[in-house]
């Protein structure tokens, strides 16, 4: 918009008209997301202060906050997300490094194996783990055959099973940003490190990991935020014994018809996700270049 354009009233009117037209183009998408996502999220807040008769009350909050089940499920939620995050970093970072160190062609081929599980139904994968990890499953049979264990290990219907399922779901989503960050590292920097006598370990520690930390941070945030709300994996692989907040919410609605209580349980999840979102936006504003 140059000043000359603004000066002409007819052109300015035209520009304003076009602006309104483009704003209206965004309305269908905004309407769907607004009515089916944003309004429902706000509704959870409202519902948390209402009893079944529709009157405003604090009873839901006092009841849920005084229940020990609430605190144990919050603890379970953070333990599951934390464990999943640590394992994703431990397994995913070397994988990303291996992918980044090979040719683009070979990496693209290997990425298919990363994308395939990503697009396979969560239920298919959960079913696969159930079959593999059962008492009589393939993993236990293999462990006993090679003599590592005498008895079948309890690998599923407990925290182990849920964490395995969660890591499996999140690993591709962690690897992709880390791989992208490592691909962007200038090969000359590494050549310089090598010519100064850095060993591979030193180069990874002091050059590659610091330069890839943006990707590692994004990957970690994705893993942590996603796993906080996981429902299918704990519901199937936890076998009723591992109950993070999402499972408590479903039970409170399905079992007790307690909409207000379920809403209260949803609020901490909402707050944590919103805080992390705000922190990411803030970080980007402080550190990164501005995007339109």
């Amino acid at each position, binding site marked *: 918009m140059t000043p000359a354009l603004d000066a002409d009233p007819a052109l300015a009117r035209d520009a304003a008209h076009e602006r309104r037209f483009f704003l209206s183009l965004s309305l269908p998408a905004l309407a769907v997301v607004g009515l*089916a996502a944003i309004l429902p999220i706000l509704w*959870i807040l409202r519902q948390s202060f209402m009893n079944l008769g529709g009157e405003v009350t604090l009873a839901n909050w006092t009841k849920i906050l005084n229940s020990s089940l609430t605190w144990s499920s919050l603890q379970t939620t953070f333990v599951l997300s934390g464990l999943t995050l640590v394992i994703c970093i431990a397994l995913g970072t070397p994988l990303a490094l291996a992918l980044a160190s090979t040719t683009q062609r070979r990496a693209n081929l290997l990425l298919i194996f990363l994308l*395939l599980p990503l697009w396979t139904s969560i239920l298919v994968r959960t079913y696969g783990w159930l079959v593999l990890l059962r008492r009589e499953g393939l993993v236990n049979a293999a462990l006993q055959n090679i003599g590592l264990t005498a008895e079948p290990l309890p690998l599923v219907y407990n925290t182990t099973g849920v964490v395995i399922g969660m890591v499996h779901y999140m690993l591709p989503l962690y690897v992709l940003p880390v791989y992208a960050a490592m691909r962007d590292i200038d090969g000359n920097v590494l050549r310089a490190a*090598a010519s100064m006598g850095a060993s591979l370990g030193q*180069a990874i520690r002091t050059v590659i990991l610091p330069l890839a930390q943006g990707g590692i941070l994004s990957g970690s945030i994705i893993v942590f935020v996603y796993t906080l709300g996981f429902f299918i994996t704990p*519901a199937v692989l936890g076998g009723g014994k591992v109950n993070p907040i*999402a499972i408590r919410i479903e039970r409170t609605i399905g079992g007790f018809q307690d909409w207000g209580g379920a809403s209260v349980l949803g609020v901490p999840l909402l707050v944590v996700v919103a805080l992390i979102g705000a922190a990411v936006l803030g970080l980007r504003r402080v550190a990164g270049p501005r995007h339109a």
Partner: protein
Amino acid sequence: MLEPWSDNRVARVLLWSIAGLVFLFLMAPTLIVVPLSFSASDLLEFPPREWSLRWYEAFFGSATWMAALCVSLMLGVLTALIAVPAALCACIAMNRLGGRPATVIYGSLLVPSVTPGILLAIGLFFVLAKLGLIGTLPGVLAGHAMLAIPVAMLVLYPAINRFDWAQVQAARSLGAGWARAVTGILLPQLRFSLLTAGLMAFLTSLDEAVISIFIASGEMSTLPKLMFLSLRDQIDPTIAAISTLWTVLVAAIVVVQALRKSKNAS
């Protein structure tokens, strides 16, 4: 990237063995269900002692599973038909408006992608219950379209931003209206991105389980919802047959997309 250390064999072997094990870990649960789906026994034994197609017959012969399959496929197609045009229009708007309005639209449309599914599910459950739309097509479709719009947007937005709008201006200066300029110039150039966005919107809907568990009851029960319910009760080998069919479908889509991408790149 690690060429300067290419004489370090030990490190390379170590790195690639970790990578190999991780790939095995990623593929194992998907691959294990394929032989099981052809087993004759209902005991999930591996390797199966006898082979049969009975679990495929069980799936295709069951009215309940077939109804759920139809619902899921229909929802997937409808979701793509809503999400892709809506996301396309929003991307054009963001590209042309720029600045703060674009940021606000982008941020709002991303909400379903960054909110835990369980929250979207119960919130939508409350709202739809108020409207009496639980277990109806409009209700479930709204839930799936809302999830698919950001997915389609993330595919289409970079493509629209790469597009050279001078072409549209040229067409318009030659007398074409907006609609003609967009259908004649923009859409043909975006066709690959539109196809990708459509497939991803379809898969998003096909794979959606959490929202369906809460709001897709009765006749609107989707395939993932039925799979979830039957997984919670017992390990039925019919699920292995469904899983195999599903994996083949997704693998075909992913491989075709990857091949086309590498062809386009070269």
